[in-house]
C-alpha cells in the first residue's frame, strides 16, 4: 500500500440561509488520497465538490471533521504554520480569467507566491518565473503579457505555473479545463499528466465531466448532495458502478464505440437541493431501487472488495445490483 498523503475525515461544511435554513454543502465526507495518485471527484454542480476542494486547501473553514496531511492534523493550522502548509498544497481554479488579477502581467502573477513566501532574491525569482513558464509550455516573451491578451488555455497555463511556483506536492484542481475550448482541454490535461510525472505531484481532480475524470484519474470519488456515495479505482468504477446514482451518471455518457449498447437511466423526481435534507439516503427520492429503509437512515460506506467502497443498503445487505 502506498503512503497516504491526505486523509479527509468526516468533513462538514454548512452554509446558513435566511429563516434558519442551512445548505448542507458538505455533510460528512471521508476519503484518502495516496501520494502520487490522481483522485477524481465527480458529481453534478451543487453536490459540494467545490466546497470540499476549497475546505481541503483551507480556503473555507469546515464546521467539523479533520484533515490529516502526512499524519499531521492541518484542520486548524494558522499563521506561520498555515503559510508553510500553503507551500505544499496548492489549487488551480476553473476560470483562469476570473482567478488571475487582470491588472497583473503573467510574470507578476507567477512571481506573486514567490514574493509572498520570500522565496529568494529578485534575480532568482525572475529566473524561477522563466523556468516555470517553460515548464507549462509558455515562451519567455509571455512574461509581460496580461490575461486579456492571452487565450483561455494560455491563461490556465499561467494559473498552473503559479500553483507550481513554490514546488508543492499536492494540488487541488477545481474543474481546471471545463471553462476551456474542447480542443484546448486535451492539451491542458496532458500537460497536467506530464507535470505530475516529472514533479511527482498528487492531484485531487474535481470535475463534473466523467470523460475527463476517466482520462486522468487513478481513483474516483462520486459525490451526491454533500456526501460521498461511491469510491473506487477508475477502472472498477466505470466497469462496474455499484451505486444507483453512479449508474445513472455513467449511463449519461455518450458511448463512442459502435455496436455497444447501454440503456440510459433517466432520473425522475424533484431536482434535489442540499437545503435541510432529511435523515435517509440522499438519493432515495430519485432512486428507482429505493426501499422504505432508504428514507429512514443514511447508508454507511461498505467495502465491496478491491478498494471499491459504496454507500447503499442494497450492497450492504448483500443484494447485488444489476
Amino acid at each position, binding site marked *: 500500500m502506498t503512503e497516504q498523503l491526505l486523509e479527509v475525515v468526516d468533513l462538514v461544511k454548512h452554509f446558513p440561509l435566511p429563516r434558519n435554513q442551512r445548505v448542507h454543502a458538505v455533510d460528512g465526507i471521508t476519503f484518502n488520497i495516496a501520494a502520487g495518485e490522481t483522485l477524481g471527484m465527480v458529481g453534478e454542480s451543487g453536490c459540494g465538490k467545490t466546497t470540499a476542494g*476549497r475546505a481541503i486547501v483551507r480556503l473555507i473553514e469546515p464546521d467539523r471533521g479533520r484533515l490529516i496531511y502526512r499524519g499531521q492534523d492541518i484542520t486548524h493550522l494558522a499563521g506561520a504554520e498555515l503559510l508553510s502548509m500553503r507551500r505544499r498544497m*496548492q*489549487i488551480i481554479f476553473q476560470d483562469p480569467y*476570473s482567478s488571475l488579477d487582470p491588472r497583473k502581467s503573467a510574470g507578476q502573477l507567477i512571481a*506573486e507566491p514567490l514574493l509572498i513566501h520570500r522565496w529568494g532574491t529578485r534575480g532568482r525569482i525572475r529566473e524561477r518565473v522563466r523556468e516555470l513558464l517553460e515548464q507549462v509550455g509558455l515562451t519567455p516573451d509571455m512574461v509581460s503579457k496580461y490575461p486579456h491578451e492571452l487565450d483561455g488555455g494560455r491563461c490556465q497555463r499561467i494559473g498552473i505555473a*503559479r500553483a507550481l511556483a513554490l514546488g508543492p506536492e499536492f494540488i487541488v484542481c477545481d474543474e481546471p479545463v471545463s471553462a476551456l475550448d474542447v480542443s484546448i482541454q486535451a492539451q491542458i490535461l496532458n500537460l497536467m499528466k506530464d507535470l505530475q510525472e516529472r514533479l511527482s505531484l498528487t492531484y485531487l481532480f474535481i470535475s463534473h465531466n466523467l470523460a475527463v475524470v476517466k482520462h486522468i484519474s487513478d481513483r474516483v470519488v462520486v459525490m451526491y448532495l454533500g456526501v460521498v456515495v461511491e469510491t473506487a479505482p477508475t477502472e472498477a468504477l466505470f466497469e462496474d458502478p455499484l451505486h444507483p446514482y453512479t449508474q445513472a451518471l455513467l449511463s449519461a455518457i455518450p458511448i463512442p464505440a459502435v455496436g455497444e449498447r447501454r440503456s440510459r437511466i433517466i432520473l425522475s423526481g424533484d431536482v434535489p437541493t442540499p437545503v435541510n435534507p432529511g435523515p435517509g439516503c440522499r438519493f432515495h427520492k430519485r432512486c428507482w431501487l429505493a426501499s422504505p429503509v432508504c428514507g429512514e437512515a443514511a447508508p454507511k460506506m461498505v467495502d465491496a472488495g478491491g478498494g471499491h467502497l459504496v454507500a447503499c443498503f442494497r450492497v450492504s445487505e448483500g443484494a447485488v445490483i444489476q
Partner: protein
Amino acid sequence: MFWRRFKRDRNAVAGLVIITLIVLMAVFAPVLAPFDINAQDLAHRREAPSKAHPFGTDIFGRDILGRIVYGARTTLLAGVLCVLVGGVVGSALGLVAGYYEGWVSAAIMRAMDVLLAFPYFLLAILIVAVLGPGLVNAVIAVSVTNVPNYARVVRSSAMVVKRHEMIEAARAMGASDARIIFDHVLPNVLAPIIVLSTVGVASAVISTAALGFLGLGAQPPTAEWGLMLSEGRSYITASPHITFFPGLFIVLLVLGFNLLGDGLRDILDPRLK
C-alpha cells in the same frame, strides 16, 4: 487604448487644458506676478482694469491679477487636499467595509449614514464652528464631508471584486489580508475612485471658496479666490471687477474638473451615472 478614447472626447480634453493652464499659472506664480501681492497701495484703491492692472485693484489697492495668479496656488492646493484627505480616508474605510463582512462593515457604514444625515455644507459649517475659521480648518471640514461618498462607492465596488476567484487564489497562495486589499482589491476599484476624485475637486473648490466667502475659510490677507471676491461685496455695484475676476477663475477651474470628470466617467466607468 485609454489615450485614444480620451483624445476623442473633446470635453475631457478641454477640461484637461483648462486645468493644466491653471496649474501652470500656480507653479509659475512668482514669474507671472514678480511683486508683493500683499503690498497695499491705498492711493490706488478699487481702480478699474487698466494697462498697469489688467484686472484692476482691490479695496486695498492690490493688483487683482497678481492675487488671482497666487490665489491659484491656494485654491488648487485646498481643493486637491480635500479630495486627497477625504478620498484616502473614505476609500480606506470603504475597502475595509467591503472586504470584511459582519460587524466591522456594519459599524463603518452606520457611521457613514450618520455623516450623510448632515447636509454636507451644514456639516462643514459645524466643523469650522468647532475648529474655528481658517483655510486649514475649512479643508478639514470639506474633507470630512467627502469621506462617506468615497466609502460608499469603494465599498460596493470592493464587494464585487471580492467575489472574484482571484481573491481566493491570492488567499491560497498565503497572501495576507493587507496584501489582498492593497494589491488586488484596490487596483481593481481605482476607476471609480479616480472619477469621483476628479469631480470631487470641482465641488471641493466651490465648497472651500464658499466657506471663504462666508468668512469661515481663508482669512485675510490670504489670496484665496472665494475670500477675494467676498472682499469686493461692499462695492459690488461701484467696482464689480473686484468680485468678477476671482469668481470667473473659480468657474473656469470648476468647469475644467467637471469636464474632465465627465469624460473620465464615460471612459473608465460607464456604470456610474
